[in-house]
């Protein structure tokens, strides 16, 4: 591998949501530029409703009507990217192994082979023994492990993760953060991670992108020069706390209570 290859290059990306009946347009993202190197772990933080999910969906190809340019590295094998969705995104009617193998099923891989190829990833995320269970039989943390394994199974160059730990309790969340770093290291992926928790972003990332309230723009691109591997106690180090303060002071002015958290603004 050459020293720095670019995994994702987004230039002046802009996106409007259009109301299907009134045709009113809502600017969700304004002129976003973002460059991510291969192997980098990059987080986006920003107030709720600022367009983080929207940006991820654009990169994933779910919202094809964006303006601007996005190029992604096409790897020799596997996929350019795969999405790890927010909580309870497993198909409730499929067993864990069928859920993890879903991406392969979509590629037309026969069931038996797809299940066999899913196994190493089930092991990687620590779900061995739960293959035949259904999602409702797993805790929230375990469901998100399966969710992560499902994305890994299609061998993506970039993992797109949309607040994957938002619904977990504080302790499980910390555990999953450490697990994610372990898996990231083991699987050698590029990660674009979305969260609204600042400490989560700093702990995980090489860079933290701070977004403004809607319409989302990039306010800052902050390098996190904390040594790796990182232990959880790094969150109490002065450098970590200083970064947290810096990002907080950028985000606080963006939080006005009249901003709609969810739903379509008319």
């Amino acid at each position, binding site marked *: 591998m050459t020293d720095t290859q670019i995994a994702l290059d987004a230039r002046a990306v802009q996106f409007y949501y259009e109301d299907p009946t009134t045709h009113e347009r809502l600017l969700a993202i304004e002129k976003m530029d973002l460059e991510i190197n291969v192997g980098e772990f990059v987080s986006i933080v920003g107030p709720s409703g600022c367009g983080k999910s929207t940006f991820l969906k654009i990169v994933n190809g779910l919202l094809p009507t964006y303006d601007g340019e996005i190029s992604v590295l096409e790897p020799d094998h596997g996929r350019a990217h795969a999405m790890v*969705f927010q909580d309870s995104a497993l*198909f409730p009617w*499929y067993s864990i192994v069928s859920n993890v193998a879903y991406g392969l099923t979509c590629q037309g891989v026969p069931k038996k082979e797809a299940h066999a190829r899913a196994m190493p990833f089930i092991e990687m995320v620590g779900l061995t023994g739960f293959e035949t269970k259904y999602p409702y039989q797993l805790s929230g943390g375990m469901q998100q492990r399966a969710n992560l394994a499902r994305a890994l199974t299609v061998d993506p160059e970039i993992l797109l993760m949309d607040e994957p730990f938002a619904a977990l309790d504080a302790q499980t969340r910390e555990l999953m953060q450490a697990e994610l770093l372990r898996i990231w290291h083991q699987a050698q992926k590029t990660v674009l991670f979305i969260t609204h928790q600042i400490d989560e972003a700093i702990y995980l990332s090489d860079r933290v992108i701070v977004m403004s309230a809607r319409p989302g723009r990039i306010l800052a691109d902050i390098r996190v020069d904390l040594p790796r591997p990182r232990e959880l106690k790094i969150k109490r180090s002065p450098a970590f706390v200083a970064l947290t303060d810096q990002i907080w002071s950028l985000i606080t002015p963006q939080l006005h209570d009249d901003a709609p958290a969810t739903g379509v603004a008319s």
Partner: protein
Amino acid sequence: MAAQTVPLKRTAHPNPKTGFWPRPNERVVFGLLGFVLVLGTWELVSSSEYGLGLVKRVLLSSPTLILDAAITDISSGAIWPHIIESGKEYVFGFGAALVTGIPLGLAIGWFRRLNYVLDPWLSAIYATPTVALIPLIILIFGIDLGAKIVVVWLEAIFVITVSTTTGVKAADAKYHDIAESFRASNWTVFRTVTLPASVPYILTGVRLGTGRALVGVVVSEFLAANAGIGFYIALNGSFFSSARVFFGIILLGALGITLGELVRVVEKRFDRWRPAIS
């Protein structure tokens, strides 16, 4: 003020596994109790042999008289042709409703434009009591088995189709996003998202359909038939043989319950992936 501790009241844990007899299920006990109470009262009020004979037997019959009639008609074999005839109407009519209703419902849910074309018609027919169509069906198909199958089919299909369509549309958009994210083909989306998500709705439609189909059997036999349980009921009613009328009704009820249970078994089979309710 001084704090005071009070001992908590303790009771022994009942252990369901001890004892020679299995612990009786409350549901069964009270269910049977209700059964005995109703039949006992009925017998007491109506039977002149074992009760007070307050009501004319031709009006209310009585449990013992009904049992008598049932034994007579079963042992003489007189009831079988009727059961077989109704069974045929049911199996073919309801089978046709399943085979046409489910695919139609899936298609309407899946193809938006088909929905726009068919929706007004379906709503109109759904709102019309199908019974009103029976004279027309007899006019077209005569009074043979064919006509009754059509009536049963018509009674059952709409609730199956409408419920199936609802199921297709009810599939959470989130799951479609996921499928799309993994580049699922239309066929894969249908197979892995639409179909599994609509199964509970399809089964609800099927269960409602079993009841409606039974109504179709009886009503069509009331109007024009020379065999069938509905015919047996109507015929014995005109002979003032209320015991046989009740026997026919009980047969229908038993059939209804059996079919309901059958659907439940199928539902259980599909329900592995959902947390058990109750």
